[in-house]
């Protein structure tokens, strides 16, 4: 006899779904009116979707119409109307309203898409449908087995039409799961994309000195590993949600067979989940630790790649590095194993408990429930066995979910960390640099820890760089030349004093925007970013030839054909990039150090004068004292200070005297 409790649940769920669908439908219509959604003709795919969805709706309508006949042994709706329960008739009537409403909403959303739409409600409903389709399959299998138990009814599965419901269950499960998966993949990929871009944007806005303070490997881990881990949540959500809905509908079904049996099953499974959650908490700490070692591991990978030469030629270094890497690999492995082990014990326990429930049903229910029928027991066991896979899947999702949570937290922490790096833009965002440019350092002082871990102070420095001047900076190792260069270019922010551009105080980004640089630890991108290369084709070709790398590298659509060049060639290419950027100030940090005499000469005798002639302020950190005469001014650094600001005439005199 039809069950009123089940009908009541269906009615309640349908009422909520219909109301919420109508709400979202209204929102959708509003968005269409506002132009936030536009009609998009999908062509043959759209026609196909309409036809297939109409076919599914027709199948659904047919199944509804034939429900009493197929599901209740040849009954008619007229019979059900008299037999009841009344609520079942109301529930089915509500189904006849809810499904078309949701279907129209689905079609409207499909043909009036919204960019970056996140249709969570639709996903939830379709997940429920998918889960119900999944459950329907086992219900129908049960019903067919029960009916075909006698020889005379062994073909009843086909003859009664139950197979149509079986097909409906499969279609509902697969179609809904497919739509949900597609939507979730889009949404989660967008979320991962958004997070990645948020990290990238924040990183690119961060001042260099703060960026430099980030733990090496952290950025790669956040951008690469954590976001990838989070993107794996798609399958977890789809499988998890579908599994949960299937379990809920299976439990409701079990409840209609025997309420106490259902409560007992829920109790045992809840206990298993509780145990899992408890274990998850301790495992989460281990996974956090594991994630810390992942950062270290990433740093080692970076070292391995960047320092391969050094490792290759120095056996001892290689052995020690290997030991360190092995250690981090071991800890990474061990923490992962420890975390997974935490789950294994409880997983097995969960499975055993689940099988134990089946045993209890089979062996004790006939004693506990006097009236329990053989069919009920068989139905229980069939549903349990069917749910077994789902329960296991749900339980094993928990460790993955814990890893996702750890990664998600890491991403958020990393974003928070880099958000704090952003400087408030209280200073002018642009300064008029047309014509003469004057960068003035007034009492600039900067303190940092040097490679030996000692505090080192650069400054106080008072100095002015001007357009049309060449300034050489020289000094011994650790004298503060490169730090001064980073202060001038805005990469470091002075602890004291100020740097002005044409008399105006500017933030580090604005200051840096005046510079073209080739630092000693320069990085060569494979593309000409920030250069209008289309208009500079001839110039590019000319300098490639001048720098004698035209036979090694070409530039197509702003992209270098290769970067596999010698250090000297790469520096020449970096010089070309810097030249093409055409900024008011050019800074070269020991550019000529790796060049042969010919190119050194070209650099000092041709390029720098040419830049000067073009009105650029040229700053070159150099040790090439044989070219000191070619500068307008020369700064010598010692222990962080300018010890001998020299004028052009003095330098020339010194050089001449030396000669």
């Amino acid at each position, binding site marked *: *006899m*039809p069950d*009123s409790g089940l009908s009541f649940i269906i009615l309640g769920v349908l009422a909520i779904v219909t109301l919420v669908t109508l709400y979202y439908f209204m929102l959708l219509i509003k968005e269409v009116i506002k132009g936030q959604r536009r009609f998009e003709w999908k062509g043959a795919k759209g026609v196909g979707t309409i036809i297939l969805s109409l076919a599914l709706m*027709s199948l659904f*309508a*047919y199944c*509804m*119409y*034939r429900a009493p*006949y*197929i599901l209740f*042994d*040849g009954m*008619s*709706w*007229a*019979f059900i*109307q*008299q*037999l*009841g*329960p*009344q*609520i079942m*008739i*109301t529930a*089915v*009537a509500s189904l*006849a309203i809810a499904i078309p409403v949701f279907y129209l909403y689905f079609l409207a959303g499909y043909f009036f898409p919204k960019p970056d739409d996140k249709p969570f409600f639709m996903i939830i409903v379709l997940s429920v449908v998918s889960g119900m389709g999944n459950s329907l399959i086992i219900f129908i299998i049960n019903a067919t087995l029960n009916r075909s*138990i*006698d020889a*005379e*009814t062994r*073909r*009843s599965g086909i*003859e*009664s*039409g139950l197979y149509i419901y079986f097909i409906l269950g499969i279609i509902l499960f697969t179609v809904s799961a497919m739509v949900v998966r597609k939507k979730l993949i889009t949404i989660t990929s967008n979320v991962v994309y958004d997070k990645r871009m948020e990290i990238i944007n924040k990183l690119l806005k961060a001042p260099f000195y703060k960026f430099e303070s980030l733990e090496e490997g952290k950025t790669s881990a956040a951008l690469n590993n954590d976001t990838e881990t989070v993107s794996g949540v798609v399958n977890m959500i789809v499988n998890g949600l579908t599994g949960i809905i299937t379990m809920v509908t299976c439990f409701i079904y079990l409840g209609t067979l025997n309420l106490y049996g259902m409560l007992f099953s829920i109790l045992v499974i809840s206990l298993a989940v509780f145990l899992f959650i408890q274990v998850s908490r301790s495992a989460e700490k281990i996974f956090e630790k594991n994630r810390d070692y992942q950062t270290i591991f990433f740093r080692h990978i970076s070292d391995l790649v960047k320092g391969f030469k050094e490792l290759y030629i120095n056996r001892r270094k290689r052995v020690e590095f290997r030991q360190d890497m092995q250690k981090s690999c071991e800890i990474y492995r061990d923490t992962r194993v420890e975390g997974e082990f935490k789950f294994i014990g409880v997983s097995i326990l969960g499975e055993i408990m689940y099988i134990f429930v089946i045993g209890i049903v089979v062996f004790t229910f006939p004693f506990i429930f*006097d*009236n329990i*029928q*053989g*069919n009920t027991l068989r139905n229980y066991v069939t549903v349990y066995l069917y749910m077994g896979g789902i329960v296991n899947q749900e339980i094993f999702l928990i460790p993955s979910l814990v890893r996702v949570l750890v990664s998600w937290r890491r991403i958020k922490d990393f974003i928070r960390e880099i958000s704090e790096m952003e400087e408030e833009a209280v200073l002018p965002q642009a300064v008029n640099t047309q014509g003469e440019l004057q960068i003035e350092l007034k009492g600039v002082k900067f303190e940092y820890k040097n490679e030996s871990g000692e505090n080192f102070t650069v400054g106080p420095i008072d100095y002015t760089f001007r357009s049309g001047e060449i300034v050489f900076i020289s000094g011994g190792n650790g004298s503060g030349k490169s730090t001064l260069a980073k202060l001038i270019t805005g990469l470091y922010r002075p602890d004291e004093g100020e740097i002005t551009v044409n008399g105006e105080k500017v933030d580090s980004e604005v200051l840096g925007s005046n510079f073209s640089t080739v630092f000693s630890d320069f990085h060569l991108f494979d593309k000409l970013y920030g250069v209008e290369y289309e208009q500079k084709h001839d110039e590019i070709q000319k300098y490639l030839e001048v720098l004698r790398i035209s036979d090694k590298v070409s530039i197509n659509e702003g992209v270098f054909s290769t970067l596999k060049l010698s250090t000297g060639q790469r520096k020449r290419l970096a010089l070309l990039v810097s030249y093409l950027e055409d900024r008011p100030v050019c800074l070269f940090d020991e550019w000529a150090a790796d060049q042969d005499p010919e190119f050194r000469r070209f650099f000092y005798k041709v390029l720098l004068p040419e830049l000067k002639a073009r009105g650029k302020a040229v700053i070159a950190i150099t040790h090439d004292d044989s070219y000191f005469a070619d500068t307008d001014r020369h700064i010598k650094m010692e222990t962080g200070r300018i010890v001998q600001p020299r004028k052009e005439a003095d330098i020339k005199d010194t050089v001449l005297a030396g000669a």
Partner: protein
Amino acid sequence: MLKRMLGGIVALVLIFQVGCSKEIAVVTGESSYQEKGVSITDKGNYFDVVLDYTAGLTRRQMGEAFGRAILKAVPNYEALIDSYIAENLSTYEYPYSLLRAEDVMPQMNEDYKEEIEGLADAFSGGKENVRGDNKISRDEIYLFNLFTDVVRGTQCCYLAVSGDRSSTGSTIAGRNLDWFGGQDNQLPIIQSIITMRYTDKKLCSVGYLGYIGILTGFNDDKVFAAIVDSQSGTPYSSLGIRSYALDLRFALESTNTMEDACEFMRDPSKLYGVNHIIGFSDPVKSVILENNFTGDGLDLKRVKRSVRTSESALNKGISWGIDNAVGTVNSFLLYGNHDNHKPNKYNTKRWQNMKRELLEKGEDVTAEELKDVISYKKGKSPGTFSDSGDLYNKMTVQMVVFEPESLSLEVFFRPRNIIDNPEVPVFEKIPVFWQEDGP
């Protein structure tokens, strides 16, 4: 297929219209017909049938004459019964139900078989069984007569007061027949009072044209009986089983006392396809026969086919506590019998309502008050059978109040032309047996 789907959608919308009331066009035949051995008179809402077995006809001839008379009174009788069978049996159930009926035939009383064969002779279906062809074949008329045994049971209730609890001092019995009447009201269209006259016995069946068993009936020895279905989920087997509706007819024909009739029906050698209950009444008392022939009980007790009285001990959690009265819904209650009562709300609700309503009538219950009890409904209109708890519900097609001592019979028949039961059932006083013999 598409046409059926569209039809389905339209039908769904129509079906779900709350409070819809369907008026049935009833095809009427001759208002009165008589031939040797059989007379049939249309009484407006039921047919009054007399089968005179003293007229010298063989049982087959009697059956054929009955069949002819039916077709005179209800020209579309075959279409009504054929469609009713089709409505109740799906395509896959139809063939094996015919086989089940075939399994019952060897155990049937030869006289009854002859009568059914005679009925089949009058109908046009012959030996060809086609579901929904508007013709009744031989096997289909067997199937119709074995409906409660092999197809679908009745969902009924029974209540009787006697002795000090009766206003007359003798038994007043009431029973509701809750049965699906068919989408086109097929059963109400053919409802009838069938009087069977034998040389030394008279029998009255409150039933249906062409149905020769007893759903509700009594004999001139003032023994009243009504069957109530009581399914216990036992796997069905038709091998070696008998028809309890036909056996009940035989019991009323062949016995003179309630005890004998009851004993006949509880005979362990008689196997039936469906567990059932029979309410028996005579002028002095009323008992309930719980005929659970599979008999799996509680607490290692195995009650099979036992009689329940107002004093009987009932299963745990079930109480009656009304002396000189017995009542039943579709469940076994005797202590030690299979408990198909408590798990089913449609039993517990009606049982509670029956008890409460009867107790409200006090210690001295009249026939009118008994009618009130069996007419109980919670709302304005009768509710659905399974969840309303209404004794008078949407499935109720007949309500019978009978006083064995005075052979007073009052019956509510669902109007032939209305699917939905009226808010208030109207009982008709029906004279019995006096037609032939005078008061």
